[in-house]
């Protein structure tokens, strides 16, 4: 039996679809996005590049996010793990199996195997560093923590649970196939064993944001279109201004971004019992079309001045109003969240479900924090949601081939 790689299967299936990186290394050279947003599985997204993939990549359908804590405060060991993570991530994104020893009878295979026969499914693996990583004294990174990377301060309406918050290192794996995303996290966790332990992880089953003009706006679990006014990757000016770290430093973060996650539990039972009118006033949009109240189409701009019977058409506490750029000194963020469900709430017997909010930005202190502070204090939606998890990570720039993600921080020498 020929060692099966996912890539070989694709080749033999004759899937000549737009730009699959079939030729091994050649796949890395044709730009980050080698397939259009078609989510038929054949598309692959290059791991190597100026920015890490999974930020400006059109949002895939599925997520597996994991936060890890360091157990070994050894600089060289961390370097080695990240080098192996990058190598493995590059293999997985092209549809290859991890490692090379997968057909050795007396050895456990390098790759865990559950994606053999599956397509690359636009897998992206995005790696980030939490503020707590820099606090490990023996790592010698204390002076390198960017000013923008600080714990998210307590915010109004927080009900945070420490076990599903924070972390030294994060991995965001996104794919159009849930098993491909799971496989990525599982294999990186395995490679990291002894260096890191998993602190928490989150599966997301449906994207709730649109990050490309080629995508339709999906609905969140409240039944509303979400992310209509999101930054689109094609809008390079907005990406440069709001998402990518520039000259403000530190140098190791240039071309990177900051990732904030919020695990937002939705009280769906209560929401489902509220009248349609209340739901629409809470969000500030029409439920089915997605148009802002007072507008006709989803793409219509918010008219925050409009009034109806002496009252603002879009209420002062409507979610869209408080989240809009004009309410936030022009600040915007790139949202990239996913719906989740994790069985039954132990104490209430209700669906444990909601939004695993993810956003990328140039400076969380200037962008996410004030936006959420405003939302947490005033948003009508707060009646139906609780923020139960929170984390922030510095996502360094992408790696060049032969390098690794984190090299700008940890250096090249062993």
């Amino acid at each position, binding site marked *: *039996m*020929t*060692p099966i790689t996912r890539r070989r299967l694709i080749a033999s299936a004759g899937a000549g679809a737009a730009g699959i990186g079939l030729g091994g290394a050649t796949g890395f050279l044709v730009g980050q996005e080698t397939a259009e947003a078609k989510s038929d599985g054949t598309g692959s997204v290059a791991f190597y590049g100026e920015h890490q993939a999974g930020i400006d990549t059109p949002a895939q359908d599925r997520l597996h996010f994991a936060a890890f804590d360091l*157990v*070994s405060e050894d600089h060289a*060991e961390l370097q*080695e*793990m990240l*080098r*192996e993570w990058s190598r493995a991530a590059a293999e997985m994104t092209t549809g290859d199996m991890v*490692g*090379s*020893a997968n*057909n*050795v*009878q*007396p*050895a*456990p295979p*390098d790759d865990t195997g559950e994606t053999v026969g599956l397509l690359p499914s636009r897998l992206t693996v995005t790696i980030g560093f939490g503020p707590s990583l820099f606090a490990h004294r023996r790592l010698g990174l204390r002076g390198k923590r960017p000013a923008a990377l600080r714990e998210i301060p307590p915010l109004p309406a927080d009900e945070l649970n420490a076990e599903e918050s924070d972390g030294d290192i994060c991995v965001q794996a996104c794919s159009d196939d849930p098993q491909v995303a799971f496989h990525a996290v599982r294999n990186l966790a*395995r*490679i*990291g*064993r*002894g*260096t890191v*332990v998993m602190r928490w992880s989150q599966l997301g089953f449906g994207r709730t944001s649109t990050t490309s003009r080629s995508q339709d706006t999906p609905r969140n679990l409240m039944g509303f279109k979400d992310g209509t006014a999101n930054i689109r990757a094609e809008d390079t000016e907005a990406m440069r201004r709001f998402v990518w770290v520039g000259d403000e430093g530190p140098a190791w973060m240039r071309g990177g971004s900051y990732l904030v996650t919020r695990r937002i539990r939705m009280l769906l039972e209560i929401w489902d019992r509220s009248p349609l009118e209340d739901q629409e006033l809470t969000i500030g949009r029409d439920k089915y079309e997605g148009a802002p109240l007072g507008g006709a189409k989803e793409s219509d701009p918010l008219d925050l001045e409009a009034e109806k019977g002496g009252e603002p058409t879009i209420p002062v506490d409507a979610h869209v109003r408080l989240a809009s750029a004009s309410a936030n000194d022009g600040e915007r963020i790139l949202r990239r969240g996913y719906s989740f469900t994790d069985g039954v709430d132990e104490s209430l017997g209700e669906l444990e479900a909601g939004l695993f909010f993810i956003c990328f930005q140039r400076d969380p202190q200037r962008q996410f924090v004030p936006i959420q502070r405003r939302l947490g204090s005033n948003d009508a939606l707060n009646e139906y949601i609780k923020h139960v998890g929170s984390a922030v990570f510095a996502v360094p720039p992408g790696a060049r081939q032969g390098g690794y993600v984190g090299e700008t921080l940890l250096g090249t020498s062993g």
Partner: protein
Amino acid sequence: MNRSLVHAALTAAAFGLLALFATACGSSNDAPAGAKKMSFELTDAGCVPNETKAPAGPITFEVENAGTSKVTELEVMDGETILGEVENLSEGFNGSFSLTLEQGEYTLYCPGGEDEKGTLTVSGKLDTENSPQVEDSISQYRDYLEKNATELVAATEPFVAAVEAGDVEKAKSLYAPARIPYERIEPVAESFGDLDPRIDARENDVPAKEWSGFHVIEKALWEEGTAAGMTPVAKQLLADVEELQEKVKTVELQAVQIANGANELLGEVSASKITGEEERYSHTDLVDFEANVEGSDAAFEAVQPLVEEKDPELVKEIEADFEDVYASLEPYRKGDGFVLYTELSKADTRKLAQKIDALAEQLSQTPALIVTE
């Protein structure tokens, strides 16, 4: 954390294993002593030579690109399986890999050449004798096995006597210590058909009528607070551990099995000790935990020189990881044993489980290195 090191050694070497006997010798990145050297060139035509012969045994393939841009790789294949290869040899570059091959026809594959495929015919018999070093490993582990089987009988005798005498408190105090030697050598016991379930089955592992061994008595002592009716079970248990003691004297051992046994013992810890499922009535799981780790450690120590030869760095890491696991158990030590499983918090068990995982991930790399000895 040196999976990459292990794998570097494996890529060229261990792909060859499928064609080998487990006891065969000599396939490694470094040319094994006495390996036959065969030289190949990559040309536009493909592999040169592409029809050749070799005697069974270790062979080092030395491959040089003699000036072609079309062919950069040579693979040795058994049917569709790649046994070994050198890749990315540009013009003027050379590389090598070693395989131990048994009798048969293998394909020489130089993709991109005018004639991509050739044949390597291997004839003769492989020398499958164990090296003295392998024999040393086996005999060291056999000593450990026999010593623990003897201790098992010695520790089970007073336990059984207390059960027969109906002395519940005494039987309870002797229960966990009697199980220690068993938990150290459990994978070997498992190789003797139904002997392991007879001695160590948990309730519902076997049909109720056939349930026997330690855990039946554990349930009676802790759940019901009596040894009544346990005499036949106790007598059978003693007979079973005595049978085990006899059987280990003649059991056939291979170095790779010993290394696998070291892994299996850690699997035992992860699957049933750290979850509190093994000793569900007495809650003495941490006693078993330590015994499994000691057994794993002893098995690893026996094969350690064989691993050392291939990957000294891995040996260092495994030894450090064992130390780490022992250290993580220390806070729970109490009297001659450990605190009860029920006294552990989720955070405690999670930490212990993660230490075991870290060790087991490294240890699981050792059998393959031993096979390629």
